[in-house]
């Protein structure tokens, strides 16, 4: 008999069906991966199992846990199961813990509620649990508040809470998505180890097919609220049956960059670029400066792509801003198309800016909500082609829309009317309308689903080929970098750890840090 049996589970909101007839079975000690893109309803499934859906959600169908029906169960009955026999780990380690209570107190809560432990016993057990999830100095951390811990540590605390009462099932909703790859890898190892030791069954929810493949025995694929396919993980990845599964698998970044033509002109030459923020000011004197980037050299030829990889805080975005001359705290030599930008002030720099343009990560934040898409795209022309009239600018904007495969008729809409992928196309059009030689792409695909990402990657390749663009491609995602870059620069703590041709760095890394990154990324075969 399966531990968890979900039958015909439907979750509806007014005007929206989030989950439409889900059937799942999880046996004891089995890990089932539930994969799907955003909006597929996978988190809704987890919340429905836990009885945590918001009040205006209408749930029907059946969720039986070890013979007990959970859908429609009274709260008391649910609370005998939740926390005691099913634990849950959430995606956001920053917000899932109460900032006002100590870690020890919070881990003790389920123990006191379900096991009837006293305060002191609960604290002792909490210390053991923190040790179990591999938190260093477990005893000392009991009195710590969540804000004193790193993201990975908080997620470990979260796991300790979920496992406090030794549940049979752990529901993990994207537990590693918000974390850096190396931390992600450590947590996955931890979860796998705990599963073995405690005989846990696990419902592992993720958008990342590679993670699903790594951790689960069986996989279920959701798309638009419907179960597309379910089966043993090995079989599903080797021989997907549903077209949607094949589409998802095909969306993994693929292909390689062909090298730029020999003798292509140099577009960007940067020497010893660094960013040092002034130290926190005291009342009278400044503290020591905080170095975000130190001594980076970059050379880019037309048609060439350099991938800049690193974890959060590695300085890769600061480097991008420094090269764009948008970072007041930057120093070092930057030449774009043989013009030395180092000594130019804002006014002198202005006419040259059309040669190098950025595309940012957050497709929502990079477009002003109060301007139409057309105005946003045409904005650069106001600076660099002031002689153009409004009608001509609009015509150019329409052309730019067509170039990024957006319907030009949509240029009168406001940003919120577009999807994430479409917004990113608008951001690309805003850069492309100036015909730049260098585009600095700061995580342009990171906030997008793989299938959307694939299309943006295709567009970037196309534009590069058509205009001989040089790309500086900043990303934490080694798979995308491998597909797009000629060469890779690995940053850590603002310093270059390793650099070289993409194939060399990602397949034969020399440095330990690069090896850790590559291993954590779980890059599939080339």
């Amino acid at each position: 008999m399966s531990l968890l049996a979900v039958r015909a589970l439907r979750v509806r909101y007014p005007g929206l069906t989030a989950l439409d007839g889900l059937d799942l079975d999880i046996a004891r000690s089995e890990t089932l991966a539930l994969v799907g893109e955003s909006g597929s309803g996978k988190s809704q499934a987890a919340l429905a199992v836990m009885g945590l859906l918001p009040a205006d959600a209408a749930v029907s169908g059946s969720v039986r846990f070890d013979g007990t029906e959970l859908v429609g169960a009274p709260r008391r009955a649910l609370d005998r199961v939740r926390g005691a026999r099913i634990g849950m780990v959430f995606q956001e380690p920053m917000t899932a813990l109460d900032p006002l209570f100590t870690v020890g107190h919070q881990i003790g809560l389920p123990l006191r509620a379900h096991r009837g432990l006293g305060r002191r016993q609960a604290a002792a057990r909490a210390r053991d649990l923190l040790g179990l999830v591999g938190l260093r100095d477990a005893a000392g951390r009991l009195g710590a508040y969540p804000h004193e811990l790193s993201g990975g540590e908080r997620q470990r605390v979260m796991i300790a809470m979920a496992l406090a009462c030794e549940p049979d099932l752990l529901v993990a909703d994207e537990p590693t998505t918000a974390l850096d790859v190396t931390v992600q890898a450590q947590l996955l190892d931890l979860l796998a180890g705990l599963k073995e030791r405690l005989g846990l069954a696990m419902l592992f929810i993720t958008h990342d097919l590679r993670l699903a493949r790594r951790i689960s025995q069986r996989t279920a694929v959701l798309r638009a609220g419907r179960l597309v396919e379910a089966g043993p993980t090995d079989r599903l990845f080797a021989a997907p049956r549903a077209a949607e599964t094949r589409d998802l698998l095909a969306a993994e970044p693929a292909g390689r960059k062909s090298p730029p033509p020999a003798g292509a002109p140099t577009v960007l030459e940067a020497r010893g670029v660094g960013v040092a923020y002034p130290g926190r000011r005291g009342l009278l004197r400044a503290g020591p400066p905080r170095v975000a980037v130190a001594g980076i050299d970059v050379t880019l030829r037309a048609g060439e792509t350099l991938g800049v990889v690193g974890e959060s805080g590695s300085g890769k975005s600061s480097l991008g801003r420094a090269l764009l001359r948008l970072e007041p705290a930057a120093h070092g030599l930057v030449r774009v198309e043989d013009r030395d930008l180092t000594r130019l002030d804002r006014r002198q720099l202005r006419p040259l800016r059309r040669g190098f343009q950025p595309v940012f990560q957050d497709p929502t934040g990079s477009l002003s909500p109060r301007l139409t898409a057309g105005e946003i795209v045409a904005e650069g022309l106001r600076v660099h082609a002031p002689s153009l009239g409004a009608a001509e600018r609009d015509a150019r904007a329409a052309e730019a829309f067509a170039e990024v495969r957006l319907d030009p008729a949509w240029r009168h809409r406001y940003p919120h009317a577009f999807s994430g992928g479409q917004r990113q196309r608008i951001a690309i059009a805003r850069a492309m309308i100036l015909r730049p030689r260098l585009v600095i792409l700061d995580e342009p695909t990171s906030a997008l689903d793989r299938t959307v990402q694939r299309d943006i990657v295709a567009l970037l390749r196309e534009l590069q080929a058509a205009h001989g663009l040089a790309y500086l491609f900043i990303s934490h995602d080694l798979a995308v970098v491998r597909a797009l870059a000629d060469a890779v620069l690995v940053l850590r703590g603002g310093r270059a750890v390793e650099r070289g041709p993409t194939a060399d760095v990602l397949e034969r890394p020399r440095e330990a840090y690069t090896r850790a990154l590559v291993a954590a990324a779980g890059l599939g075969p080339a």
Partner: protein
Amino acid sequence: MSARDLDDGASLALRVRRRLLGDRLAGASLAVLLGVALACLVGPLLTGHPYDRIYYDYPRTPPSLALYPRPGTVEPALARLAFRMRVRAEDVAVGPDAVRLTLAADGPVDARVLTYFARSDLFGAARVLARSGDGTRLTVEAPLRRTRFLAGTDGLGRDLLTRTLAGGRVSLALGLMATAVALGIGVAYGAAAGYLGGRADAVMMRLVDILYALPFVFFVIMLVVFFGRSVGLIFLAVGAVEWLDMARIVRAEAMAIRRQDYVRAAEALGLTTAAILRRHVVPNTLGPVVAFAALLVPRVILLESFLSFLGLGVQEPMTSWGVLIADGARSIETSPWMLLVPACALVATLMALTLLGEGLADALDPRGPR
């Protein structure tokens, strides 16, 4: 729509419903406000009473639809009038529109005493119908001056409705002007501090912090007491007090917007600082600023009323809601309407403004309702 948005999407339905409810409230508030503003603007012209006209015959008249003078009051009034004219009133006949009576005296009656009729609040100019041969009896007819005091009169006999509406003009105008002053200073100061950032911002905001900790109402009182109770000074003082919040809000918005990628993109496009402020920063601060300004108006009106209530605000014969309420509070025992009428006007306006401001804040907040 990501799975996380779905959670938000669920509350979105709630949010929309709440916003609809808020909108209905906000719409009603807007209607009330427009009504009050219109009434204050043209009302004093339509009530038929100048706001400073004193009806000596009608002090503390309670509100009613009745026409004055009341039938029973005409004859005593005539008697009083006759006493002042040093004549006897005889053969008094009170008609619907006029009174007819004979003025009798021991000596000849001087027709000039008839001016007493016109000077009274009850009658119009009298004309002589007949004169007895020896001049001791004068038969006259005087039209009744028929008036209504829908909201009653104050202690001096001034029409309260007119005074309330006229006071409303002052209160509303002060509210708007002081808000404009606060808006001007606050937006300029806050946007500059937020966009410049760094040390300039630190110094500017430290100043605001210090000013914030001052017991400002007391300063306003001192200002008004020592430098005269002029309307201009009041609104300057109020505006100068209330800009602090605005500056903080605008600064916070400007700082948040400055970190947005679209501002970085605009910088990378080479837009000038002025263009970035104009095209990107200011339009995106507008929502909270408008909402806060709407909430500021009632605060200013309240502050003005407070000063006027203490006798430190608008001075007689000019009036404002605060003055009227202060008047009313002093005579609650004898004439409670004197408190209730202006208080209702003030409270209705404040409530409408507050609800409208909150509705606006909800609707304009890009992060959704608070």
